[in-house]
């Protein structure tokens, strides 16, 4: 099934409304870039550590947030070290780490369904020209389609393995795309038959 990156908890951060968390995140990032000073960065890192503490998260979670970008961060650190000096390299890399951890903190403490509810609530108050029902339909359809296409992908891979060509990207993608397109007509008809448009 489809799972999000949410880590359960009952802290103040978990209970805060998603919109507030997003606003704080943008404020935090803007502050770090506008006030480009090591004192500000130190304060920022302290705040993040405090945030992870309040949310009851472990250092491992903070590291998980940075790990996917590790390769890029090392290159950036090396480039800065070469262009400028150690202080600048450390500053730029730490600022990126602070941003990554701050954004992950919001993701860790907010369920995807809370965000979806928030988007739908915003849409209900959106201006008339916006096709809100269609946006809501599209979002809910993707939830359903990801497991479906995953299954179709496994079937295609099985078939191509029998032919000994499961390492060929083209042999995996072409049949999968055609199957996906074929299912589009059936699904659209099924939705229209229930007069949801």
């Amino acid at each position, binding site marked *: 099934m489809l799972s999000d990156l949410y880590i359960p908890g009952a802290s103040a951060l978990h209970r805060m409304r998603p919109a507030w968390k997003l606003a704080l995140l943008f404020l935090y990032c803007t502050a770090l870039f506008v006030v480009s000073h090591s004192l500000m960065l130190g304060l920022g890192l302290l705040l993040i550590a405090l945030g992870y503490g309040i949310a009851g998260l472990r250092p491992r979670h903070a590291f998980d947030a940075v790990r996917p*970008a590790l390769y890029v961060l090392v290159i950036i650190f090396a480039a800065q070290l070469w262009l400028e000096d150690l202080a600048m390299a450390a500053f730029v890399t730490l600022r*990126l780490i602070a941003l*990554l951890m701050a954004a992950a903190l919001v993701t860790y403490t907010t369920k995807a369904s809370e*965000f979806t509810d928030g988007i739908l609530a915003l849409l209900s108050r959106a201006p008339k020209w916006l*096709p809100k029902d269609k946006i809501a339909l599209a979002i809910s359809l993707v939830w359903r389609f990801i497991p479906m296409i995953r299954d179709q992908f496994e079937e295609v891979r099985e078939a191509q393995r029998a032919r000994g060509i499961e390492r060929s990207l083209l042999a995996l993608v072409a049949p999968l*795309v055609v199957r996906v397109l074929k299912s589009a007509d059936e699904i659209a008809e099924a939705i*229209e038959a229930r007069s949801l448009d």
Partner: protein
Amino acid sequence: MTTRDIVLIALFAALTAVMAVFPPVTLPLLPVPITAQSLGIMLAGGILGAKRGALSIILLLVLVAIGLPLLSGGRGGLSVFFGPTAGFLAGWVAAAFTIGWMTEKFWDGLSFVSATLICVAGGIVVMYALGIPGISLMADVPLSKAFMGSVTFIPGDIVKALIAAAVMVTVKKSYPIIGQAA
């Protein structure tokens, strides 16, 4: 926009998400493995056209933003939009739109060669035109250095442009979406 358009947009958002778990291909002499995900971007534009293609990538990014780990390597959540490679995510939408727009323009005479050129123009030129300034801005490095750091990915992207072009031509013959009366 018909119900079928919505279904197609959602299907390609999901397809691009599933491509994140495709087995990565490693080429000799290349330090970075090729992930299939940016193939999904090229296909969204090249099969659905500019508008639907770009919308399907936006839809995928919305789901990533609300916390689903749908990007390659299981990445997801808001941090990908605040990391050094955030410019590439904007590049995805622009790439899908450009590829779709050019495919619509050259639809009648679309061949493997022209489809490859379209995928290179949109999926590499446009994508890096947004991604590299993104790295430069977030990491405070000059554009030339950001470019040097990204160059290793370009051979893999060319392989993907070739695969995407082959799929586009196959789909045009067997199951065309763009040329239909909408």
